[in-house]
């Protein structure tokens, strides 16, 4: 009897193990399939235009004859918006994480944590709409520029979306730093600030880098809000106060029009490949940062 129960337990364990193994394999296979699909549809564009002309061409006129498929302005738009959002979100995000994990106590900590999680739950289209109604007119009148639909508005709005990701992951990283590090620093006579700045933050640095990278990943993939408030002008911007068009917004705005199997259709998939590669590298860096810590 005892033996049988034991083997049933073992069987269950083995089954669970197999399930986990299977779901892990499935997700890898799915990612591979997605990439194969993207590649199959996207690489067709390179039969019409060269790889260099696609990546470095500076005009995007997909439906003209002859059509121009240069995504440099779109990449410039995506990078500018992402850079702006990162510059805003990273200091705020890390500072909030430090405050929540090291300074705030009890009730305030709980309120802040759930508040930030709530912020992450707001759909981006809602944030985009709020941005259109409040942020865009404000940017226009404050900076005296022709229109408020700019990369800057997009960056501010995206910072809102990246901050919760950065805060919650950075906070986990800070919490994972053994208490004795901080206690030792305090015992040696450092102030609380010195302990946080010189000991806790460096100890959690790899986790914080991962948090920042995941935040950037969220920003670069964001579509709806940027489409609504960055103005969608496909030109290479020379200031952050100009309208830009991002890679994601281009796909979203134009996929309705494309004739299946046309160059335009393939070009949108090729943009998908570029985005996939960018996010892949961001995730890779985040992953390397995490493993660096494990060693």
């Amino acid at each position, binding site marked *: 009897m005892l033996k049988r129960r034991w083997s049933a337990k073992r069987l269950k364990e083995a089954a669970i193990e197999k399930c986990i193994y299977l779901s892990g394999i499935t997700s890898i296979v799915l990612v591979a399939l997605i990439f194969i699909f993207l590649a199959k549809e996207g690489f067709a564009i390179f039969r019409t235009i060269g790889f260099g002309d696609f990546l470095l061409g500076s005009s995007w006129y997909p439906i003209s004859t002859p059509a121009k498929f240069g995504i440099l302005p779109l990449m410039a738009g995506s990078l500018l918006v992402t850079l702006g959002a990162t510059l805003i979100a990273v200091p705020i995000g890390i500072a909030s994480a430090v405050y929540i994990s090291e300074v705030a106590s009890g009730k305030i900590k709980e309120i802040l944590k759930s508040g930030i999680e709530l912020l992450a739950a707001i759909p981006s289209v809602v944030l985009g709409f709020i941005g259109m109604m409040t942020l865009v007119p404000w940017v226009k009148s404050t900076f005296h520029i022709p*229109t408020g639909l700019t990369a800057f508005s997009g960056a501010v709005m995206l910072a809102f979306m990246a901050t919760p990701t950065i805060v919650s992951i950075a906070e986990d990283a800070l919490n994972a730093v053994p208490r004795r590090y901080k206690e030792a620093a305090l015992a040696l006579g450092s102030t609380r600030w010195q302990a946080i700045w010189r000991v806790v933050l460096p100890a959690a640095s790899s986790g914080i880098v991962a948090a920042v990278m995941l935040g950037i990943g969220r920003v670069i993939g964001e579509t709806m809000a940027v489409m609504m408030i960055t103005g*969608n002008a496909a*030109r290479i911007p020379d200031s952050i106060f100009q309208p830009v068009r991002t890679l994601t917004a281009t796909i979203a705005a134009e996929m309705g029009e494309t004739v299946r199997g046309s160059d335009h259709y393939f070009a949108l998939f090729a943009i998908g490949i570029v985005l996939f590669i960018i996010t892949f590298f961001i995730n890779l860096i985040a992953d390397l940062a995490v493993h660096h810590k494990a060693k």
Partner: protein
Amino acid sequence: MRKFQWFIVVILSVLGASSGLATGNSIQIKGSDTMVNLGQAWAEAYMGKHPDAFVAVTGGGSGTGIAALLSGTCDIAESSRSIKKEEINQAKAKGITPTEFIVGLDGLAVVVNPANPVSQLTIDQLADIFAGKIKNWKEVGGRDLSIVLLSREVNSGTHVYFKEHVLRKGDAKSTVEFAPEALLMSSSQAIADEISQNTGAIGYYGMGYVNQTQKAVAVAKDNAGPYYTPTLDNVVSGQYYISRPLIFYTNGQPQGALKDIIDFVFSPEGQQIVKDTDFVPVK
């Protein structure tokens, strides 16, 4: 086991209900953003007369509508541009015959903020403004203020029409493009909203969208004038230069309920609705 039976019953009834809908009088109309309000008005009037019929109207742009017709997800595609050669080829490959009905006309209004002193422009000036050659309002008799260009997205028939007939002045060989600085807006409403709060902006859309918070400029073919505003009379007489047909595409000659609704659109009542939604009737 009981639970399982219950589940089957639910599934079957859902399937039954949905197949009932599909074989009933449900008609899907999809496409041109310019025509979505017009289509909605027709649908409401038609459903008022035929309580058993159900007509659903969605926008998304002319290209979206035609794509939906080709993939069989709508019965009528609304379009503010003619169907393209590639689209016809694609339709043929799928055994679909797009059939065209011109259901109305639209004057394409060029709009600015009411506070903008500029109230008339020639086609040449418009072409230069939207191609980015004229960058400041003072070059066309306005204030010293930079011009903010607003355009529709490339999935819009209005975008294509404006480029072909204003920027390129109907010349098929021309390669003039919208200036890369032009802001591509996702809907006519988005352009209207931006125009009403931006004194430097200029945009274009179907005349049905113009209200008191925007000003439609009068347009002339050349410097000699005369200048015409996009009104019903000027579009009917052909004096307002930037006008275009509004089109329904169906798959083959419409039958049954579909024919019924197209007959309604061409009836005096249907054409009155065209007029009521600020477009121009064809009959």
